[in-house]
């Protein structure tokens, strides 16, 4: 039986796929000693200058004639004026999903409260006259939240999701960082992409 302490464990893989020898990374030949050509410096300096000047020339032309297929050769985004389009996998601040009538989808089961590694969520459950459960208070402490997304993963109703919001999260007062239910509610339409995304990735697992 192979244990962890075996020096030379015999490979018990079946002979399928890429042979093991080919999986080995190519050895990089690293030359420490400089050749005479490199020791002359001048030509190596010129080679370096060629690289940087090529970028310089390309960008100078790119300012005038933008290269095809790209808006410009420089990919800097002017932040307050321009925004990057975030992928659905981006985890911004968690929000509660609201129904059409504005009430929250959450049924106050308390799973997110239990799951939260930072103990950021505190729920007070309540019951309506028709027997539906709802949180009478749902407080998310944003000074504790670590944006792990476990609450969203564990939620049976897709009622709490990670939105793409990443601005206005800083406060000068800790009291302001306790987000009440009203501050957390977002319409279902605004987080549609994320809901589809979590349905897709979490359905692969056996929940």
């Amino acid at each position: 039986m192979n244990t962890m302490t075996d020096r030379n464990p015999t490979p018990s893989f079946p002979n399928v796929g890429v042979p093991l020898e080919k999986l080995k990374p190519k050895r990089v030949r690293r030359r420490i000693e400089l050749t005479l050509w490199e020791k002359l410096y001048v030509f190596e300096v010129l080679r370096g200058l060629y690289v940087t000047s090529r970028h310089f020339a390309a960008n100078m032309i790119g300012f005038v004639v933008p290269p095809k297929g790209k808006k410009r050769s420089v990919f800097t985004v002017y932040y307050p004026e321009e925004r990057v389009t975030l992928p659905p996998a981006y985890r911004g601040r968690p929000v509660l999903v609201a129904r059409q009538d504005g009430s929250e989808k959450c049924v106050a089961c308390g799973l997110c409260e239990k799951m939260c590694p930072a103990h950021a969520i505190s729920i007070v459950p309540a019951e309506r006259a028709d027997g539906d459960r709802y949180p009478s208070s749902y407080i998310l402490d944003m000074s504790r939240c670590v944006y792990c997304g476990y609450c969203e993963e564990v939620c049976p109703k897709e009622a709490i999701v990670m939105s793409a919001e990443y601005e206005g999260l800083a406060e000068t007062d800790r009291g302001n960082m306790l987000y009440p239910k009203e501050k957390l509610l977002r319409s279902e339409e605004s987080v549609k992409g994320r809901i589809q995304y979590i349905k897709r990735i979490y359905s692969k697992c056996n929940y």
Partner: protein
Amino acid sequence: MLADFIESIAKIVFIFSINLGFFAPILGWVERKQSAVMQDRIGANRADIGGFTIMGLFHPIADAVKVLTKEDFIPAGANKFFHTIAPFICLVPAIATFAVVPFGGRYEIFGHQVNLVIADLDVGILYVFALASLATYGVVLAGWSSRSNWSLLGGLRASAQMLSYEVAMGLTIIGIIMVYGSLKLTEIGAAQANFFRWGIFLQPVGFILFLTCAIAENKRVPFDIPEAESELVAGYFTEYSGLKFVMFWMAEFLEIVTISGIVTTLFFGAWHLPFVTDAMLLSFFQFAGPNGAAILAMLVNVATFFAKVSFFIWLQMSIRWTLPRFRYDQIMRLCWKMILPISLINIFVTGLVVLL
């Protein structure tokens, strides 16, 4: 006599304004913007007046305002006198060196000989070297008088590096002096009227060695161990603030201009266009009368000269943003074991060729 006086004043004002008013502020912008373009970035473009940014050209103004309102700080325990005087010792040689660099030929306007150089010294090159070595004092004093470990180390490194490279720089230029047989920069410039007599064709090795030494003398990357920011904060001017801090920067930028001017004068035909002599320019502008032709030819000379200077400024900036920093021992080995012997061989070969 009065005409001479007016001529001198006009030339001094011209050089001062183009150096301090144009090159010194604009090079700060060029350095940022060129490095940005070379590295696929955008660079400074936020300072605006009424919504106009013109590619960040307002940043030098913003910098000037910022610098003028900063506190002028002298650290406790520093030698106040030397701490104050060191930036001046750095800046003055950088400006004064341009006095001997000719930026045009000799013309006659209204019966008055105009020579486009501020001081036509017989020993122009020696004057350049003398002032370049004076700048060392500023750096060493700044490092020593700040009473800071970083500054002291920076000053020590600077003194060792600059003294070593001064020796090598003096030897690299001997070849040019032998070829043209003169120490006078105007004569060296005038001797390069023929395109195939430019210094770069007669002394290609000398050019590379001189440019290397000049960059090292100016303490710029890849020879910037005196101010190595990853090791010594800012080196010899760590303890400076406000206007004095900027004076070190201005000295560095003006030295770039000066080096470019000297390289242009010695190796790249000074104020001459390729295949075009001053006499040809004069005959080309004959339609403007003798005086008008002289003025137009002068303008072409000055424009040519400063275009070449701008190219070498670009080259030095490119080198600065291309190469990593040398280690201290590498700098010393490059100087004493490579540049010095090669320049000696260069002198020997030049001497043989000149003799034969």
